[in-house]
């Protein structure tokens, strides 16, 4: 087990830059989730750590040792691929023991290690099957098992749950959390699913266009997003961004009536989360366009004025009707710089 340090890490393919100076310090045993939209470089970063991609510039240390130029096998990391990449011609047992087999460990040791992990993951009855004879969830567990058997310093998970259906995904999420608590191994987990990120991570790294936007605990990211990108990316349904102007302790949203009591002067962008809006009172008024009922709560899609839309989350049962005009009170407002999108103090 080991901590991981990334220092000014760059990855370029010819003139295309994929990672632009990533700095990250990961403690031993931390669960790090890398999130970002498609093409943000999160999978590339994971592959750089695994050694499947060469690092263009910067340093990568695992356990205090510079590993830039080491082959994957010398880094002692284990990876779970999105496709699971199980060897189709080998039994589950051989798949799981393969890393130990190529390391020429004694047969008895391999057997014991595989069976221990299989017991941990409920895979014992499947050990002599081929991957083609397993369901998606079982394959996912085998892929996990194959990574665990090696007792690596770092686990690398590349969208490990994205090929599972919703209920299984939820189940595996919990199981992953469980496993991490037991094994206490450093994890890098790539996902585009923010729920996965928020539930699993000790810290989340948000990547956008090869640049780290924010690193922090799920709470920090949710409560104090560093910029509009993180603000809108984390939280579902996402934060609404509205242009506004502040003067003398009040802020007015462009094109709307009603003022909010907020500090700040001049143009800025306001970020409003659906969960932070109280309906029925307040300075803002909006017309309900659509009501989405989610069971325990409902989402009101509100039209505040031309080009000014907002979603508010209210508890069910909800008495409002579409077409009704309601008053709105934002309990929490995030303020961002109008041009750079950075969070204002």
């Amino acid at each position, binding site marked *: 087990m080991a901590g991981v340090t990334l220092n000014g890490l760059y990855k370029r393919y010819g003139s295309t830059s994929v990672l632009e100076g990533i700095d990250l310090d990961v403690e031993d045993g931390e669960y790090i989730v890398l999130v970002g939209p498609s093409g943000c470089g999160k999978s590339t970063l994971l592959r750089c750590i*695994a*050694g499947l991609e060469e690092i263009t510039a910067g340093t990568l240390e695992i356990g205090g040792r510079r590993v830039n130029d080491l082959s994957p*096998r010398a880094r002692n990391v*284990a990876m779970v*691929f999105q496709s699971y*990449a199980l*060897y189709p011609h080998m039994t589950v047992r051989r798949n799981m023991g*393969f890393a130990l087999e*190529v390391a020429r460990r004694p047969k008895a040791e391999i057997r014991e290690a595989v069976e221990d992990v299989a017991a941990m993951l409920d895979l014992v009855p499947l050990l002599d099957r081929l991957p083609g004879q397993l369901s998606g969830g079982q394959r996912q567990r085998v892929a996990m098992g194959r990574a665990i058997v090696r007792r690596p310093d770092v686990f690398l998970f590349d969208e490990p749950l994205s090929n599972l259906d919703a209920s299984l995904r939820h189940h595996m999420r919990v199981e992953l959390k469980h496993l991490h608590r037991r094994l206490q191994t450093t994890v890098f987990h790539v996902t585009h699913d923010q729920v996965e990120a928020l539930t699993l991570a000790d810290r989340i790294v948000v990547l956008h266009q090869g640049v780290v936007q924010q690193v922090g605990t799920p709470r920090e990211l949710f409560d104090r997003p560093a910029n509009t990108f993180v603000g809108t990316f984390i939280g579902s349904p996402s934060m609404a961004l509205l242009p506004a102007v502040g003067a003398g302790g009040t802020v007015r949203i462009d094109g709307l009536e009603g003022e909010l009591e907020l500090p700040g002067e001049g143009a800025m962008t306001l970020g409003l989360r659906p969960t932070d809006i109280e309906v029925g009172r307040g300075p803002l008024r909006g017309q309900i366009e659509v009501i989405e009922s989610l069971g325990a709560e409902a989402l009101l899609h509100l039209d505040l004025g031309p080009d000014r839309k907002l979603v508010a989350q209210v508890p069910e049962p909800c008495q409002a009707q579409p077409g009704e005009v309601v008053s709105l009170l934002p309990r929490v407002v995030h303020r961002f710089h109008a041009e750079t999108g950075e969070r204002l103090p």
Partner: protein
Amino acid sequence: MKARRALQALLLCGVVVACLLAPTWAHAADLTVWHAYRGAEEAALREAVDRFAEGRGHRVRLVSVSFGVYDSKLETAIPRGNGPDLFIAAQGNLGKWRRMGLLVPAGDVSGEHRDPAIEALTEGGELWGQPLAFKSLMLIYDPEVIDTPPRTTDELLALSAALTEDGRYGLVYEAGTPFYHAPWMHGFGGAAIDEMGEPTLDTRAQVDALTFAAELAALMPTAPSADRVSSLYTEGRAAMIIDGPWRVADLGRRVAAAPLPLVSPTGEPARPYLTVEAAFVAARGQDPEAAAELASFLSGVDGAQIRQEVGRQAVTASRVVPSDPILQVQLDQAARSEPLPTDPEVQSAWEGLARALRQVLRGTVLPDRAMAAAQQHATVLRRPPPPPANPWPYGIVLALLALAGLGALGYRLRDPDLRRRMLVHAPDYLWIAPAGLAMVVLVVVPFLTGAAVALFAHHQGEWSFVGLAHFIDILLARDWPITSPMSFGFTLVVTVLWTVSNVTLHVVIGVALAMLLREPWVGLRGVWRALLILPWAVPNYITALIWRSLFDAQVGAINAILGLLLLRGEALQIDWFSSFATGFAANLTTNTWLGFPFMMVVTLGALQSIPRDLEEAAEVDGAGAWQRFRHVTWPMLMPALLPAMILGSVWTFNMFNVIYLVSAGEPDGSTEILISEAYRWAFSRGNRYGYAAAYAVLIFLVLLFYSRLANRLAGRKVL
């Protein structure tokens, strides 16, 4: 509507038939003459024929037929009535053609031609062709180097030795070919067969002749080919060669000629085989009388004059005076020569003699041992076919089998459900009927015919039913010990070795190149891929011929390159076809060149279907390049490669072209494989078609067993 269709179909048939018959109608009134002449001889023939046509008002059509297929075309066309009226050929096959009824006797022309010509064309007391020209070997020498040609073999040896030094040779000739050895054989008092057609290869005279040939060969480059002989003379590096008048035009230098010398120990002249070219009137021609007239004209004084002047032929007509000294020498040589035997049995002596010659020239066997083996070889080949067998037991077994088949069919047809389904699907059966018919005609019928031929023996044009005798002879190695290259067992072992080593190399190289082509650092991938597939795209006999010349002992590129690589400063002198290992290696190299692209293409395709993830997973799992290949890539390639390997083995097992064209079985038939042995039995060992067919059936059984076994080993059906 239907009537109109039928009418159209009828019209179409009419047109097709008319097209097929058109050539016959168009030339019904002409005389057709077949020949295989080229260059000056062809021009002379044309001129002579034109002169004849002017005088008689006949139209004559000259058809030039390629030399390689000349005899077989004659033998198939004439009996079917598609042959020429007249054809020009040497007398070598006279006996066979007469027996096949291809010829019309020529009438009496004695007195008009020199004796050897009449002698060579007379069989059974009748003359069978109008003689045209003599052709035989003679001594050709460089008049700038030699004033007086040697008159005896002692003088020849001494002169040859005196003129042979650093890269120059006194005498060069195709010493490894029986035709070129024949002058010595006859001069020492030997003959290939006696009057009864029995081989006479182990006589004292034969051994002496061979010993003498070895002495001459010691002063020559190893086993020179015809081209090598010509080029050495042209380059001024050979003072004397033994060759025919047909070679003179290629030499490109001044030449003088002399009859071959007297053999010193016997005092007899060295007598080469004499070929007499003649105009033969074909049986079943359109107008035999006109054809005979044309033959007399070509053969007579007027025709002979043209052929001598334009075609530079040594004509047989006794009243024509030779126009230059070389033609005179050819005529003198004709007077001291042996007519090429017309007995088909002589074929049985050639193979053994050729092997003995090459063994002795190579220095691997002593002359007496070699000739004893040659005699043994020829005797076995001449052995009469197995005694006729009683066909009844075979007929009864066949009838019982047919009955059993019909019974089984009838039993199955009793099932009413099956009958009903067959009725329902009747139109479907019609749909597949054309394909079924094609299969029957193209596969089943030839196969059954081949298998049936194996039960018959063919000997000098006659067939007899011998049952399973051929199979018994072959499998029990009745004629040769199992360790002889002529035995089935030996050849089978060589064939298996050949197949296994080829397929192994094809797969190793093909897979390695396919893996290499996938590496990210390889640029111009498309170009490489196209280049590497190229060997496969070239017809394999062309490739085989190219490799054959690359492996040539004297002028081949392989020896030159090896010389460079080993820093010898000059080409190596490895005679690749002098030992089994090197001959086999040359064949193997050629066929590997031909075979790896197929495996490469199959692998490239199969690699596409292996997700990159898997190899990356193995890489992260700590597997090195070899382990990744061994444990991940290779097992995943197998489903695609296994059928390709089975297919490749079958192709290689029957890869006739490479064996026939590269090593041609050298040395001593040891590098032959089963299919090329079958060919030799059918076509160069007295047309033993039945024996050859038995080989073919055995090959089929071996391959059938192999493919079943391969399926079993693969654990499922792949083919």
